[in-house]
């Protein structure tokens, strides 16, 4: 098939996006843009206390307020739930999984925990009435720090669980301890990765419309319409067959919408009760409390090495905040990094332990990279520490330990299909001109400049493309990791593609059309990609974990092969030749050796629908569905470098350059890939320098709006220098995931650069985010 990168094909070309036309004109279909006749509006009353016993809920005043249709406490709705909000990843047999209902009725366990709900004729009236709900609270001690939460006598998030320890998960190779004991050098470093608040630009929203036969249509700003349909049956008892879930235009997710939230269950439950469409749109400040957070992990990372710099063992022990409840995959997030604590390095002995910890905080879950930024950060920071300890150049130390032969089975047990880590690093060094940077750094140090220069590296790999279903089963994930695609020729030759993926900015309408246009030899304008509606796309596992192309895209390719197979049988029948005598290229079947005897695929589509002359027993139509379950994860990798300027008087850090070289396999749309890389890097930079979801000692969230939680603007980041190296992945398109690479790689590169800028002063560590305050303090500490 025509899938090689070339100007003759759509695949490999920077095709402009089909998605842009409506979004640029302001005619996007975001959930909040949709209001149905009779719609009523929901407001949630939330606990202002991180931990409190609820002694009373008085709804009288709210119920009497203007425009109010109904108001309910947690107790009022207790009978509406067929089950707890599910957590799909019980990572160990003895994990503690306390129940979690859309409204709490006994104890509020984090600031923002819902205690009552009001429905009114308008958004404003619902909000007015919500303020009239009187809740009696008996405040209790609360804890936000994962280490303190495990101490004896710490306030318990779930009293009946009896501990804040949610689970302990461990993966260790047989000879690990012996390798550690035998090492010439052991380096251990400790890291705190703060909470990150995802901040998709579109706040969450849901609109639930009850149907006449007990059916329900839900529009949600979600990454996972298929999962939402599934969980509605578990929580509300509505059969999946009666649920239609539509994810229209979705304004970013970054993992925060790989989730089914309390408000989605509430909207559906209330729509069912009231028989009217119920709508809820999150306010940003509300979202800071009620939408999941990411990270919040304390790590201790140990390398064992020989004197010459061969790393012989890696050990990670991490305390991972779960927050107050387990959301959809909360406990599993650390596991998404569990197999890559050796990164791109051949490290034969391996030990990783995660302890999940409940705290009185917003639940954590997937945020861009999910588990892999955590692992890569501690690994790449400690590479620099080991290099300093051994007196070996940090770039050479990385190179010396790179995996060289592929496929490569890591100590953790998974096999990397492809890669060339030296190639990415070589290209990075070409682009960077390290000697020039180091010369300037030396000059500034010599002069004692106020502004010092630093350069930091991060060489990474990651596992994405979630995921082989059998592996998911083996690690106790509740569902499969396949995806589906349908290709449907219409009688006159236009093509509908139905995908199980659910894009929210990734451009699948364009990239998927590129794949189909090349494979079937049709014009890209003839291909229409449908997604995000469970009534249209019945089978799907949605979009997260850089999985859409390597799972859904490969399913699409397989569906294309089935189309070709059927079309070939029709052509062979009508031209009275054997199938083996036909070849297919550029959208036409031609009899080998007789170029004048051919039939275009659009003609075949018409013949398939006319059905006047099909092979005996063949069904009319030209449509095929493929469901693809990947045999392996996807293994992108690369080498990134950050150059920073640090003001030693104010502690302010500015990025001067950022250079990224990634191997994401064969590119389908290089323009879209670059966009993913830019955005990913920016979220990594944000974590390194700006963003921190901070709680005080009593578990009050201190960063509650965009004025205190610093999402970077255009003024905080530079233009990026990007390039790609390429090794083919072991799949029919040679493709790898790209959505999370930048976020995984960037944070350690930037923090390593900040430390490098100050290393001549004696600074050896700065914790994320490297705010002016932290940097200034680090400088003062070494000066005194």
């Amino acid at each position, binding site marked *: 098939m025509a899938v090689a990168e070339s100007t003759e094909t759509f695949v490999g070309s920077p095709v402009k996006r089909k998605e842009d036309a409506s979004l640029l004109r302001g005619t996007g279909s975001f959930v909040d843009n949709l209001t149905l006749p009779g719609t009523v509006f929901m407001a949630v009353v939330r606990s202002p206390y991180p931990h409190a016993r609820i002694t009373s809920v008085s709804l009288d005043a709210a119920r009497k307020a203007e425009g109010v249709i109904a108001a309910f406490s947690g107790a009022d709705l207790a009978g509406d739930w067929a089950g707890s909000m599910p957590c799909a990843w019980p990572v160990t047999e003895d994990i503690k999984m306390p129940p979690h209902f859309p409204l709490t009725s006994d104890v509020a366990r984090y600031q923002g925990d819902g205690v009552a709900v009001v429905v009114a004729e308008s958004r404003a009236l619902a909000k007015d009435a919500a303020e009239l709900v009187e809740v009696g609270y008996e405040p209790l001690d609360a804890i936000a720090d994962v280490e303190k939460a495990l101490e004896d006598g710490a306030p318990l998030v779930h009293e009946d669980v009896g501990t804040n320890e949610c689970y302990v998960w461990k993966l260790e190779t047989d000879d690990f301890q012996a390798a550690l004991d035998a090492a010439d050098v052991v380096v251990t470093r400790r890291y705190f990765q703060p909470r990150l608040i995802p901040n998709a*630009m579109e706040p969450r929203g849901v609109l639930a419309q009850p149907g006449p036969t007990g059916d329900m249509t839900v529009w949600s700003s979600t990454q996972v319409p298929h999962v939402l349909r599934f969980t509605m049956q578990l929580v509300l008892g509505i059969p999946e067959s009666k649920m239609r879930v539509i994810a229209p235009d979705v304004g*970013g997710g970054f993992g925060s919408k790989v989730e089914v939230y309390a408000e989605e269950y509430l909207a559906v439950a209330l729509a069912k009760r009231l028989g009217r469409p119920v709508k809820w749109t999150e306010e940003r400040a509300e979202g800071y409390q009620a939408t999941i957070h990411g990270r919040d992990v304390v790590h201790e990372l140990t390398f064992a090495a020989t004197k010459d710099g061969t790393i012989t063992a890696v050990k990670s022990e991490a305390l991972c905040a779960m927050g107050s409840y387990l959301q959809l995959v909360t406990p599993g997030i650390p596991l998404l990094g569990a197999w890559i604590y050796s990164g791109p390095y051949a490290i034969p002995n391996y030990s990783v332990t995660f302890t999940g910890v409940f705290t009185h905080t917003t639940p954590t879950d997937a945020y861009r990279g999910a588990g892999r930024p955590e692992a890569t950060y501690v690994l790449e920071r400690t590479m620099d520490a080991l290099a300093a300890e051994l007196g070996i150049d940090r770039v050479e130390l990385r190179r010396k330990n790179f995996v060289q032969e592929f496929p490569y089975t890591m100590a953790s047990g998974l096999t990397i299909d492809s890669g060339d880590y030296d190639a990415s690093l070589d290209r990075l060094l070409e682009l960077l001109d390290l000697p020039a940077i180091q010369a300037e750094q030396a000059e500034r140090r010599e002069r004692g400049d106020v502004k010092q220069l630093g350069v930091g590296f991060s060489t990474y790999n990651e596992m994405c493309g979630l995921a082989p279903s059998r592996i998911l089963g083996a690690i106790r994930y509740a569902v499969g990791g396949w995806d589906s695609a349908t290709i449907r020729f219409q009688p006159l030759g236009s093509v509908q593609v139905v995908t199980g993926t659910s894009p929210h*900015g990734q451009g699948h309408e364009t990239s998927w059309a590129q794949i189909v246009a090349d494979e079937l030899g049709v014009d890209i304008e003839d291909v229409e990609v449908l997604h995000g509606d469970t009534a249209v796309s019945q089978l799907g596992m949605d979009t997260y974990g850089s999985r859409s192309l390597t799972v859904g895209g490969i399913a699409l390719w397989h569906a294309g092969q089935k189309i070709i197979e059927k079309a070939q049988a029709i052509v062979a029948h009508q031209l009275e030749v054997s199938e083996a005598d036909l070849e297919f290229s550029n959208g036409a079947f031609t009899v080998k050796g007789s170029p004048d005897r051919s039939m275009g695929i659009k003609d075949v589509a018409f013949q398939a629908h006319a059905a006047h002359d099909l092979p005996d027993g063949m069904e009319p139509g030209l449509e095929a569905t493929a469901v693809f379950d990947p045999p392996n994860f996807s293994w992108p990798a690369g080498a990134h470098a950050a150059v920073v300027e640090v003001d030693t008087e104010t502690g302010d850090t500015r990025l001067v350059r950022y250079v990224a070289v990634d191997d994401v396999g064969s590119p389908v749309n290089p323009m879209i890939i670059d966009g993913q890389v830019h955005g990913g890097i920016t979220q990594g930079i944000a974590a390194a320098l700006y963003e921190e979801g901070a709680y005080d000692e009593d578990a009050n969230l201190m960063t509650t709006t965009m004025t205190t939680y610093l999402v970077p603007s*255009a003024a905080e980041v530079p233009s990026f220098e990007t390039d790609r190296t390429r090794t083919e992945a072991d799949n029919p398109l040679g493709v790898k995931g790209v959505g999370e690479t930048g976020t995984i790689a960037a944070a350690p590169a930037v923090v390593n650069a900040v430390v490098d800028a100050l290393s001549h002063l004696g600074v050896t560590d700065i914790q994320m985010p490297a705010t002016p305050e932290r940097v200034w303090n680090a400088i003062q500490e070494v000066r005194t």
Partner: protein
Amino acid sequence: MRSVALTVNGTRHELELEPRELLVFVLRERLGLTGTNVGCDTSSCGACTVLVGGESVKACTMLGVQADGLEITTIEGLARNGELHPVQQAFHEEHALQCGFCTPGMVLSAVSLIEAGEATDEEAIRLGLEGNLCRCTGYHNIVRAVASAAGVSV
């Protein structure tokens, strides 16, 4: 309620507004112009940016009644005769949008910046767009799109 007359995308509207209604909700909910998005409660994100008398204004910082007698342009009013405005076209060419939620506000801020003659180089463009947050693009391609529409090289 107060009587207000405002002109949006060239069309005059006479409305009875509650004094507390923000301009952005007047546009979205009274006039059905849902291209103007709401991204935050704190005038931080710029998703709701519109042009008021040609200047970019965050429509969540202004009450509807304050718009009495003013001319407002929203994203729906930017294209002419079906043709995208040069800034919209540049966003398409340079892949300056992904999820598209910040895009209307970002485009209108850019239009205002260019028309004010302030999009003179990369630094000026970055500073000029400081009030508009995007979570998808890392701003790289947005800066290129604005530069391209402004006829400056970056």
